[in-house]
C-alpha cells in the first residue's frame, strides 16, 4: 500500500555532503551579491491602450548586471528555519487593491500589437526570459523503485522543472546540449565557472535518493550563477506515486524565489474531455496535473457533463450533468467516485461554483424561462435566491474572501458583468465596453476579473473588480471560459475551431497576453478549471 508523504525536508544534515569548502561561504545569509530577479508584469499595469505598459515587463534583472540589490536574507533565514518553502506557497489572501487605471473605456489593443518594439525571444514568450540551467539530478545510488529507477527519475525530475519554468514564459532553460552531467557531491558545490560560460544566470540542481522505507527524497537547490551563491534550497520526501510532485515543488521554489509571484506548478486541472462528431460530442470529466500528466477520466461519457469546478479542499468536484436527461448540478467525490444531486426537483440547474470556504455552492437555476443566481449549502437544502431581475443572470464567481460575487446578466439587453455582495445586495454593473461580456471569474489574488468578451469572436480578457483596466489577452475565433492559476498570473481557457471539424482544446495565457500555449490532452478538451495549489 503506497502512502503519500510530502513533507518539508527538514534537516540540512541529510542533504548531500558538500565536497567543496567554498560552498560553506555560500550558505544562506552569508555575504551575498545582488540576487537574480525576474520581473513579471506589473499587476496594475495600465490598459493595453496605453503604449507604455508592455515594456514595463521587459527587464530581467540579475546579479551584477543591472543593479537591483534585493536583500534576500530575510527570506533565506526563514528558509533555514524550515518553513519558507511552504510559507511561499500560501496563496496571498490580501484583499483586492483598488485598481488605479481609470481609462477603462478605451478599447484594448489587439493582443498581437503588444510585443511591438521588444526583443523577440526564442520561446515566443515573454520579452526577456531568464536563461536558466537545470541539469539532470543525480542519484546517490541507482535503485529500482515503483516509480522507476532513480537515475531515470533524476532525469525526469529535471525535465519537469524545465518544462514548468519554460511554460511560465519567464525562463529560457538551457537546451540539453548545453548542460553537462552533475555528480552527486557537486549538487551542493556547483561548477559555477562552467555554468557561467553557458550564459545561464540561474542554476537549479538537485538530487534524488531512494530511502529504506520506500519513499524518495528529492533535494532542490537554486544558485545565482554570476554571484556564485546559493539562493535557496528545499527538499521533499515523497512516495513513489507522487514523485512528479517533487519536480513541480522544486519548480515552484525556483519560480517564487526569482519572480516574487506565488507558486502554481504543483496543482491540478479538472476539465471536460471531448471526442466525437460536433453534433454528438462525447463529454467526460477528466482530471490531470497542471502539466497534463497523471491524466484520468472520472465519468464514462454516457451523459453530457459540463463546467466542473474543484472544491477548495480539492476532495470533490461540482459540475453539471445530463444524467437521466435531467440537466442538473452534482458533487463528485474524488475519493469514492460517488456523486450526488445538489438541488432536487429543479428544471435546470447549472453554472455551479464553490464558495471559497467550501460551505456553499453558487449556481444558476432556470424557472419558466427566467434564470437567476442562487446559493445553496454544499450539503444540499433549500436554495437562496440572490438575483431576481428578469433575464438571464448566471456565471457567478466569488471573490477570494467570499464577500462578493461577480456574475453576468443580460438585464441591460446583452450580457454584461456585475458585482454584488454575497447576499445579493448592491448589484452594480462593471463592464461598459462595446460588445458583450460573459463568464466572469474572480482572480484568487482578488485583484482582477477574467472574462470572455463577445464581439465578432470570443476573446479572453481581464479587468479590475471595479471595471477598470480592461485588457484582452487572446485573439482567436472562439476563446471561452477562463480559469485562474493558483497564483492569479496564468489563465486556462478553451479554444474552439470553426465548422464541422471545429474542435475545442485547452489553452493557457498569462497576464501579459504574450505567453499563450496549448495544453496537451489525450483527446479534445473544454471547460478547464484550475485547482488550488496542492497541500
Amino acid at each position: 500500500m503506497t502512502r503519500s508523504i510530502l513533507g518539508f525536508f527538514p534537516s540540512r544534515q541529510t542533504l548531500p555532503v558538500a565536497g567543496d569548502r567554498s560552498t560553506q561561504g555560500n550558505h544562506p545569509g552569508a555575504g551575498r551579491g545582488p540576487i537574480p530577479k525576474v520581473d513579471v508584469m506589473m499587476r496594475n499595469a495600465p490598459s493595453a491602450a496605453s503604449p507604455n505598459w508592455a515594456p514595463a515587463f521587459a527587464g530581467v534583472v540579475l546579479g551584477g548586471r543591472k543593479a537591483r540589490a534585493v536583500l534576500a536574507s530575510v527570506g533565506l533565514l526563514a528558509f533555514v528555519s524550515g518553513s519558507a518553502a511552504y510559507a511561499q506557497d500560501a496563496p496571498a489572501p490580501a484583499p483586492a487593491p483598488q485598481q488605479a487605471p481609470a481609462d477603462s473605456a478605451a478599447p484594448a489593443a489587439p493582443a498581437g500589437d503588444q510585443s511591438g518594439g521588444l526583443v523577440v525571444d526564442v520561446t515566443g514568450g515573454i520579452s526577456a526570459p531568464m536563461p536558466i540551467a537545470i541539469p539532470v539530478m543525480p542519484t546517490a545510488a541507482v535503485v529500482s523503485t515503483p516509480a522507476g529507477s532513480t537515475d531515470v527519475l533524476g532525469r525526469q525530475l529535471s525535465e519537469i522543472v524545465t518544462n514548468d519554468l519554460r511554460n511560465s514564459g519567464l525562463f529560457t532553460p538551457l537546451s540539453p546540449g548545453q548542460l553537462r552531467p552533475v555528480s552527486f557531491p557537486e549538487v551542493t558545490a556547483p561548477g559555477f565557472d562552467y555554468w557561467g560560460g553557458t550564459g545561464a544566470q540561474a542554476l537549479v540542481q538537485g538530487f534524488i535518493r531512494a530511502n529504506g522505507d520506500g519513499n524518495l527524497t528529492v533535494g532542490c537547490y537554486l544558485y545565482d550563477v554570476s554571484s556564485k551563491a546559493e539562493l535557496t534550497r528545499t527538499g521533499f520526501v515523497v512516495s513513489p506515486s507522487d514523485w512528479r510532485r517533487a519536480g513541480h515543488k522544486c519548480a515552484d521554489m525556483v519560480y517564487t524565489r526569482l519572480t516574487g509571484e506565488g507558486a502554481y506548478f504543483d496543482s491540478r486541472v479538472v476539465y471536460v474531455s471531448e471526442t466525437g462528431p460536433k453534433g454528438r460530442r462525447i463529454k467526460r470529466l477528466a482530471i490531470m496535473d497542471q502539466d497534463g500528466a497523471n491524466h484520468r477520466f472520472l465519468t464514462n461519457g454516457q451523459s453530457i457533463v459540463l463546467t466542473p469546478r474543484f472544491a477548495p479542499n480539492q476532495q470533490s468536484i461540482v459540475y453539471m450533468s445530463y444524467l437521466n436527461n435531467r440537466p442538473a448540478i452534482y458533487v463528485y467525490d474524488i475519493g469514492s467516485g460517488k456523486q450526488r444531486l445538489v438541488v432536487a426537483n429543479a428544471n435546470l440547474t447549472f453554472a455551479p461554483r464553490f464558495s471559497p470556504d467550501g460551505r456553499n455552492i453558487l449556481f444558476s437555476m432556470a424557472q419558466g424561462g427566467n434564470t437567476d443566481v442562487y446559493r445553496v449549502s454544499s450539503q444540499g437544502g433549500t436554495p437562496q435566491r440572490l438575483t431576481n431581475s428578469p433575464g438571464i443572470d448566471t456565471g457567478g464567481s466569488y471573490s477570494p474572501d467570499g464577500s462578493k460575487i461577480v456574475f453576468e446578466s443580460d438585464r441591460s439587453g446583452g450580457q454584461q458583468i456585475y458585482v454584488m455582495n454575497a447576499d445579493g445586495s448592491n448589484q452594480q454593473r462593471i463592464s461598459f465596453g462595446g460588445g458583450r461580456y460573459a463568464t466572469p471569474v474572480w482572480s484568487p489574488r482578488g485583484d482582477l476579473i477574467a472574462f470572455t468578451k463577445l464581439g465578432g469572436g470570443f476573446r479572453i480578457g481581464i479587468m479590475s473588480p471595479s471595471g477598470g483596466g480592461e485588457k484582452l489577452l487572446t485573439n482567436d475565433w472562439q476563446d471561452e471560459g477562463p480559469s485562474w492559476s493558483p497564483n492569479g498570473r496564468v489563465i486556462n481557457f478553451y479554444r474552439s475551431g470553426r465548422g464541422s471539424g471545429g474542435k475545442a482544446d485547452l489553452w493557457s495565457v498569462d497576464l501579459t497576453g504574450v505567453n499563450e500555449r496549448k495544453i496537451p490532452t489525450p483527446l479534445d478538451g473544454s471547460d478547464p478549471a484550475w485547482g488550488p495549489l496542492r497541500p
Partner: protein
Amino acid sequence: MSKLSNILLACTALIAVAGCAKKRPAVLPPAPVDNNAPVDPNAGMNNGNVGGAIVPGSDADFQRSVSSNTVNFGLDMYDIDPTARAILDSQAQWLAKFPNQRITIEGHADERGTREYNLALGDRRANATKNYLAAKGVSSSRMTTISYGKERPVAMGSDDQSWAANRRAVTVVLN
C-alpha cells in the same frame, strides 16, 4: 509546532486521496474509444417505427403529421414569430388528437454564445414554445422542457445558415 501540524494535515489529505485512488481502479470508467456510433440524446424514446409501420400517436406519427417538429429563432431571441406560430398550431392540433401523449421540448442555441448563457437561452426558447402550446390548449402537465444550449447542433457549419438552423426548439413525443 504549526509547521508540524501543517505537515500532518497535508499528509493526511494525501493519504486519503492517494489511498483511495489505489483502491478504485475497478470503478474507473473505460478508456476512451473512438465512438462512431455516438449517443443519441433521444435514445430510448419511442420513434413509433415498429416493424416499418408508424404507430398513430407516436413521435414518428407526430413528425409526419405536423408541418415541422422544429421552430427557429432569431439571434439571441426567443419570441415565437409567425412562421413558428403556424408550425406550433399544427403541433397543437396533433396534440389535441392524442390528449394522453406527453412531450418534451428541447431548446437549443447556436455556437456564438457562451456555454452557460446558451443553456439559459435554450431554456428560454423551450419555455417560449411551451407557453405558446399551452395557450393553444395543450396542458402544461403534458409538457416538459430541456435545454441543450449549444451542445447538440443539427447543422455543423460555422455560418449564418447553420447558426439559424441551430437556434431552435424541437418538440419530441414521449412514449
